[in-house]
């Protein structure tokens, strides 16, 4: 089996570390991250004809005022 080059292995390890760091965020911060994911993904879903709605969070509404 082909082994990963050390540089690539390091990249994968860093990615994994970031995912674990994200897992430790407080729940409200995670909810905000989910909404950011929705904002990024919604145009792709809509282009495929799927109807999706990005959540409206109260604090985001306040920030936009």
């Amino acid at each position: 089996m082909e082994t990963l080059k050390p540089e690539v292995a390091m990249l994968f390890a860093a990615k994994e570390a970031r995912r674990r760091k994200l897992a430790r965020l407080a729940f409200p911060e995670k909810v905000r991250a989910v909404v950011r994911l929705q904002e990024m993904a919604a145009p792709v879903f809509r282009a495929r004809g799927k109807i999706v709605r990005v959540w409206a969070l109260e604090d985001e509404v306040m920030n936009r005022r």
Partner: protein
Amino acid sequence: MKRTLQVLNELERDGVVERYAIGGAMAATFYVEPLLTFDLGVFVILPQNAANLLSLAPLYEALRGRGYAEEGECVLIEGVPVQFLPAYNALLEEALREARETPYEEVFARVVRAEHLIAICLQTGRDKDRERVRILREQADLDMNYLAGVLQRHGLEGKWKPWRP
């Protein structure tokens, strides 16, 4: 989201639902990295009706009365599409009973335990459930003894073995 949770808490306080708990991708997100989802999955225990039916109609009616409209399989509550699922078996009833209360800003939310999320994924068995189990196994702090008990009580040990690494 805070207002959405307040509405869920009000529904429980007013007896529209006996108990609720967040499930699905948002519950998993509580334990692992943020996962993309467009709806908030909520398990509910409904009050017993005369016909002993698991009908969401009284819940939808109560929500309409509060000004929240249905949108596909969801109800749009304060900007968040909420998908309600009645507890239809013993595993979901247990998951609801043992769900944890957690603060969210100034309100509280009840979230299904990670071990129950794994058991529900095993029972449902779709490709995305398999992926969710993998992430929960990698990132959540699981109580393996508690998980073993859940799997044993609900006859899921056989399904768990092939899903382990």
